[in-house]
């Protein structure tokens, strides 16, 4: 069953490259708005660097707040890329084709944004070189590998490197395509990036193998990254943070929010670039089905985490859990997380009708991420507010305008980078689409006609 009329190669090329050449009004409006938010972001960063972290709402003992929450959130988003690309590529899920590029790019931009935050949130960012780079050979003072703050950058850098290579591998054929169709600075750029791609069989083979290899290699990294991010909390002594379930819990939460973000992005691309022929309802349908599974897995861990805390019967743990679940504002936040990240979207996704409704998918996926941001906050902050039995020091946290700006700015930053990317690189992989078309056959399975690609290998 084909859900679009057959397209020929040239039509695909033309349509998919259109965003590179045509700039609709809405693009400029978006650029102006995002530019505004980004200037505020830059100003907030400058302000914070100049005056110090006093400009935040952090205090003693709430030493971590919005910036760390945001870091965890963006790391989560970055899991979409690999989830969609690598896993689906390895399992040869055909519907992945139009989605992979956007997902991978989002991985990279959200990773970069995420990494900005630990750096920004240090007391003296200009000194952070030796946090990660053991530059000081003379005195033999190296970073301390015992703590997760060193594992973190290691994992994230590896993931970033891997994802970048992965993206690049899939970009090469398109670069060659663009090289052959452009002039001026673009031609120079694409020529360099195409790495002399000629499209001969050997090159295709290498590209295919590299893609598969990278997919396979990056999978463990993908699992490790959010596990390690979760250990920032889990290896500490803080009640409710100190939980062995955190790693898988964080990973699945990350997939939940990351894949939802891909839906949001797909919907936007469809509207912005008019890719109705590529980002089709069937794709939303497929991802929607996947999300039902992921979201349910996530809610299971979510509940397990609470149950495990009660299981310990440790008053310190229970104290925080109690606050989280029953006390203002965390009770409210919990309800919010539940409703936004599960109770509304999942039942909606159960219906094929809604899964194929782009608007519904757009809004539900957006809700999930609002909910998931809140979930990170809900996970991180209460532990700091009621740290052990020093009720004398129990404190609370209100983010300052600077932190709010930084968080909104991070969303603007990722969006802005994606927009810019779409001006230079095709947001949907042209060669993959063509490959899909070229190798596709409709095969009969029972009563259904299934659109499938059969490779000779």
């Amino acid at each position: 069953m084909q859900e679009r009329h057959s397209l020929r190669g040239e039509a695909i090329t033309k349509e998919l490259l259109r965003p590179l050449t045509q700039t609709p009004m809405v693009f400029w409006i978006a650029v102006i708005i995002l530019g505004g938010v980004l200037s505020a972001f830059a100003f907030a960063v400058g302000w914070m660097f100049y005056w110090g972290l006093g400009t935040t709402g952090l205090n003693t003992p709430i030493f971590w707040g919005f910036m760390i929450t945001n870091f965890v959130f963006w790391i989560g988003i970055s899991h979409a890329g690999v989830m969609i690309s690598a896993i689906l590529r390895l399992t040869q899920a055909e519907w992945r084709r139009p989605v992979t590029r956007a997902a991978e790019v989002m991985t990279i931009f959200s990773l970069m944004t995420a990494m900005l935050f630990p750096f920004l949130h240090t007391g003296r960012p200009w000194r952070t070189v030796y946090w990660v780079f053991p530059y000081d050979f003379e005195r033999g003072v190296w970073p301390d590998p015992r703590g997760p703050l060193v594992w973190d950058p290691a994992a994230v850098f590896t993931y970033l490197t891997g994802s970048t290579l992965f993206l690049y591998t899939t970009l090469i054929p398109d670069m060659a395509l663009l090289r052959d169709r452009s002039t001026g600075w673009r031609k120079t750029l694409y020529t360099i990036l195409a790495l002399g791609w000629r499209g001969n069989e050997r090159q295709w083979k290498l590209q295919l193998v590299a893609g598969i290899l990278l997919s396979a290699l990056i999978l463990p990294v993908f699992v490790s990254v959010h596990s390690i991010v979760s250990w920032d909390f889990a290896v500490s002594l803080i009640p409710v943070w100190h939980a062995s379930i955190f790693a898988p819990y964080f990973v699945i939460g990350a997939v939940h929010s990351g894949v939802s973000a891909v839906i949001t992005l797909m919907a936007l691309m469809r509207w912005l670039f008019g890719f109705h022929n590529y980002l089709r309802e069937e794709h939303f349908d497929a991802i929607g089905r996947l999300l039902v599974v992921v979201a349910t897995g996530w809610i299971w861990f979510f509940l397990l985490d609470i149950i495990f805390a009660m299981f310990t019967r440790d008053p310190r743990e229970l104290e925080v859990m109690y606050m989280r679940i029953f006390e203002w504002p965390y009770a409210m936040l919990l309800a919010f997380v539940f409703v936004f990240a599960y109770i509304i979207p999942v039942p909606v996704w159960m219906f094929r009708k809604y899964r194929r409704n782009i608007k519904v998918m757009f809004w539900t996926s957006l809700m999930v991420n609002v909910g998931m941001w809140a979930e990170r906050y809900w996970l991180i902050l209460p532990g700091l507010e009621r740290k052990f039995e020093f009720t004398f020091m129990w404190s609370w946290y209100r983010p300052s305008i600077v932190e709010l700006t930084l968080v909104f700015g991070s969303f603007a930053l990722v969006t802005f980078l994606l927009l810019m990317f779409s001006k230079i690189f095709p947001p949907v992989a042209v060669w993959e689409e063509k490959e899909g078309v070229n190798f596709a056959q409709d095969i009969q399975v029972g009563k259904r006609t299934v659109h499938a690609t059969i490779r000779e290998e």
Partner: protein
Amino acid sequence: MRRRDFLKLLAVSTTGAVLFTGCKLGGYAETEFQKQSPVDHPADIPFGRDNWYATALPAVGGGIGVIVRIFEGRAKKIEGNPDFPLNTGKSGPRAQAIVQEVYHPDRIEGPMRRNGGGFERISWSDAITEVAGLVSNATSPMLVTEPVSGAIARVAGEFAELAGAEHVVYEPDEFVVLRQAMQAVFGTERFPMLDLANAGSIVSFGADFLHNWISPVQFSVGYGEFRQGADRERGTYLHVSPRLSDSAASADHWYPNSPGTEGMIALAVANAMIEEGVVSEERASEVYSGVTLGDYAPSAVAEATGLSEDQIREIARELGQNTPSIAIAGGSAAAHTNGLFNLAAVFALNYLTESVNTEGGLLLNTGSPDTEVLPNRIGGSSYSDWDGYIESMIAGDVDLLMVHRANPAFGMPSASRISEALDQVSTVVSFSSFMDETTSQADLILPDHTTLEQWGLDVPDPAPGFQLVSVQQPVVEPFVGTRQFGDVLMAIAEEAGSSLTWSSMQSAVQEMGMSLASVGRGLPDATEEREFFLEMQTQGGWWDEESTAGDAPSAPEEMPSPAEPQFTGDESEYDFYLLPFVTNSWEYGETANLPWLQGLPDPITTAVWTSWVELNPNTADDLGVALGDLVRVESPSGSIEVPVYVNPAAPPNVAAIPIGQGHTGYTRYAEDRGANPIEIVAAQTESGTGALAWAATRVRIEPLNERVRFPRFERQLPFQIEENPIVKVTREA
């Protein structure tokens, strides 16, 4: 014997080498003891090393001895002087903060003359000439000082005599009552020493003796031993007061009483002691002559006092059986219309338990070794006397008022009209180092050195049960262009054509100090005068451990007759007792100018940089107020606005407000912070002494429906969780 060993132990425990100038530097004949400044003592500089110099803080903790760490001519750190018997190497929060006085950014940097609404700087010679002229022409000048003793008391006294000025001392009224109570009960004006280290129990009626009352450092040192000293049973401490004070929190039991009933409770305790056979009826009536003790059976007074019969008996049992025992009274107990009776009735209990001048009891002090050379601390005038002075000021009868280190404009209620009085005096000359309320009404300011820049000989009150004199020497050069009060008085006298006995405070102190050598006892034991003084300076003073008070009187000379407390403000209209209290950080307001102390959490409320009214949680609920809600506290003579602190230990009918904040000036750190409860105290006096009864006013509380951010150290939840409590307790170890 034991204390000396203790001293030795502490002596080695000070940081590194404790070097005292006196013996270290030789060959600078005239400046021998004086200078540590880089200018005069290059030897002090090039090594970048510190030195420790001994001096004293007459105004802190009853006059403790300290050593000060000096590094390149700057005072860095204060520690207790380990040799000095009063505080044996220990100090307190206020003593620690005194370095900030020296380097305070708002010190008055030199003499000033009023110029319209502000002040203009003038030279010292102009200032002195001007004051000399005023003194020569004044017909009825007045000299107001803090309670001075020793060298400065003599200098000021001689100056006052020469100038024909009346020397009036201003001090918090609580101590006026205490001095008279001491006189009535023990026949001495000197404050008592509490031999806590050897005591079995202590009952305090309102005296916050561990943090504020007369000699807190000394008492705290004893208290440590009292609780956990080696080779002794742990002492028991009971506290009776209408507010859970900082000290009361350390008590084994705190019994909240109805304000002003301390004396009545004491009589009931005496009654119970007779019942229990602790003391015979004859002896008791000898001590409480003129009082029918039989009328004060615990059962009869329990209700009026707010204590239960059992609690009264418990106090009697503790005092009577857990001997040696000590009973003291102070704070708000003194500040009622029956304050003198309250204090006297309580202190007299010590006779019943035979604790007067016995080991572990209440030790009487004899004061100065030679009052001719070094006068005892001069007590303050009562509020009634001040009323008289204020009358005459307002009538224009005082043409020159000279004020040194006294701030009546802050310490007296507005009902006293002190501010108006100061306006009416033709010239007010202030010698204050800081722009306090009184100084800001002055016409001329001749700023004094701060404590660490001064010379002085002080007779601490209370002494540690034997005679003691402390030496104050300048440990740093004056940081700004101030001059020492004594020196300025001498210069003024000279300018006015009649010089004082001494040419400078330094020579006065040296001369008086050296003449102590002729006392012929105590330490130092050098006989040569110069050597004697040098050693005295090095060890921080002179003392004679043998010079105890000897025989105590056998019974009070006169027992004030029992009286009920009277309150201003009708109960139906004013439903709370106003209870001003002295705080750990700001005392009576003197130290509110130091940022470390402003930022030091109040032990009970953890409040900082502000003032507040403490309300019982239920009362607060009834009023519909919570932490930080502004309320108007209104008495018959005025009102103030303060935020609420809901205090779980506040009695339901008491509104306690700290004294010490509410300055309208007194440097950037104190200005416009909180409110001063004394302002709204009614002009009602203690019946026997004429002292201000600052705890005898009733108030009403009116919520203002406005919430302010309440600055405090504790974050949000004022409780301790039951599982794994942070402070663990055990019954008896």
